């Protein structure tokens, strides 16, 4: 079990998450992709912690799990709220914060 394998896994997870973030419209999938990216970072931190023998990496990873959990709660609550208002979870419909361009 060389560290390189873990790095590879982490990169793959990150990429999957990133691509998902960019190309999917459904808010839940968006959130899952973000979670995936965060998880991959966690994995990376833990791996480095083991490799360098430094405990702070593990500490950060544990901290991050707590934060991610809180964030999940918030995010999902907001999605519920948005769904109640707009009856959809398509992220492309929420574009009010854009530049109004009159002509093409």
């Amino acid at each position, binding site marked *: 079990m060389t560290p390189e394998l873990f790095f590879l896994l982490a990169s793959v997870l990150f990429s999957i998450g*990133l691509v998902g*973030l*960019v*190309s*999917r*419209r459904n808010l839940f999938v*968006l959130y899952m992709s973000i979670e995936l990216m965060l998880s991959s970072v966690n994995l990376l931190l833990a791996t480095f912690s083991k490799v360098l023998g430094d405990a702070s990496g593990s500490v950060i990873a544990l901290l991050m799990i707590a934060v991610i959990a809180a964030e999940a709660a918030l995010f999902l609550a907001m999605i519920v709220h948005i769904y109640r208002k707009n009856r959809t979870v398509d*992220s*492309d419909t*929420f*574009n*009010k*914060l*854009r*530049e109004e*361009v009159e*002509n093409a």
Partner: protein
Amino acid sequence: MLSLIVILPFFSALLMAIVYLGNTKEKRYFFYTLIGVGTPAVSTILSFMVGNTLLDGSATIHHTLFQWISVGDFNIEVAFMADRLSVVMISFITFIGTLIHIYAAGYIKEDESYGKFFSYFNLFMGSMLLLVLADNPIMMFVGWELVGLSSYLLIGFYHQESSNITAANKAFILNRVGDFGFIMAISILFISLEGTGFTFDSIQENIGMIDPDRLSLIGILLFVGAMGKSAQIPLYVWLPDAMAGPTPVSALIHAATMVTAGVYMVARYSFLYELIPDVGIFIATIGAASALFAAVIASYQSDIKKILAYSTMSQLGYMFIAVGLGAYSSGIFHVFTHAFFKALLFMGAGAVIIALHHEQNIFKMGGLKKELKLVYITMFIATLAISGIPPFAGFFSKDAILVTAFASEHYIIWGVGSLTAMLTAFYMFRLFFTVFHAEPTETKKVHAVPNSMTTPLVVLAFGSATAGFLGVNEAYGGSSWFNTFLALPDAPLHLSHAKEYMLGGLNVLLGLLGMWLAYQLFAKDMREVQEDKIYKKVIINKFYIDEIYTFLIVKPLLFLSNFIAKVMDPKIFDGLINLNVWTYTKSAVLFAKLQNGKVRYYALYILVGVSAMSYYMLFKLGVVS
């Protein structure tokens, strides 16, 4: 005392202006007449007193008022100089001026802007006297311009008629064109003198240090100024139109004084012009051409004042022939005599116009010799004088000029001058006969002419008759008193007395010939000029010069102005700016498209940005080799 001659008219003009503006409706007849006519009278007396001291043999009088400006080598004072030339000028300017002021008091009496008139009139007197008495070119130029301003104000006196203002504008603008040349000449003169002082005296001393080419340039440019002021070709077109002003204005400004400023200027700069005879010949040629040209046009004009206007231009041409060929005194002598009979002619014309209720077409006049006897006699004398019939003034002065032309072997100029002399007699007597002798086509009631208008006529008639005797040259038994007094650097003449008599006789003959022709054609019944033949049409329309000027100058200027307004400014200069604006807005629109409000796209941008930065940091900044 010398300064008072100039300052008094300015002050009285200012005073009258302030009083007038205080209440324009109130007719303070007595006040305005007293100040308005009294001031030139005082100036006249003072001028004679100054003249007297010079006659007694004293040298030139200088008087400095104050330092006007002092920058670098440019030190100009408000200073006056009474030498023999200027004393002669101011004598007749003030004298005839006062007479015309008296005349004007009668002419303008009914007008409600009486006060304004005399304010302007005195402004003119002050300016003209400043021009003549200035001791340096800058002060002379100030007077020169102010005279132009007064002319503008007076021509446009009846300002309710837009056409009068157009005439006034024309006068001022053409004057200014001349002044453009004049100011260039003065500036070049000053620069060339390199700090040796800038009064006429000092310029005269140092004139030798300027090289001849430069001098010629200066001489020509000075003459450009004279062309404008003295209505010579090509800057003359304002003079006939200037007749729109009240007749006293025409008499004073456009006959006796302002228009002669150009001749005076050449005489004043005689020390310069005698060094550049070629320029002098140019001046004389222009003078001759103008003289003939104007005489031809005058022969076909119907308006009494316009005939006299062209006549003035013609006589001015003679003066320039004289000063151009180096006969400065003769030129000034003709200025002097011409002032008398031309002022008289204008004033007489004014009397006729008033008498016939503002009729100005000579062919609607006729047979006035009974009703306006005094005017008739005085105008007869003046017409004889201008036609060069001895012993009246015009003969001696005109003869002197033609003799000069002949003697200096400029036979073409002499020929032109002689031909013009005949034409002069012709058109002047044409005027005289149609107005006074011929049978009138319609009878009109004659309005009475006030004494204030007729008395000056008598005085001037006396002058026209006798003024010539001041300058009789040796051939006729005189002592050329006028010329010797002036002491100008005249070119010497060598002509035998016999030849002089012949030339003089020829002049008289030509005059009589013109008179006879006019008598034949116009004394009995007159016919208004018909535009039947082509040459007549051209001459009656003044050779279409006005139209040519409009075409060559006015229209292109308007076109250019509109071009700038519609094309240059909006399309080119603004165009550049609008191009900028267009670029910005277009790119703004482009960038705006990136911000579509969709979260996914923003995430993509973050991805791109971070990747680029990471790449740069890792590989370019040497974190990883």
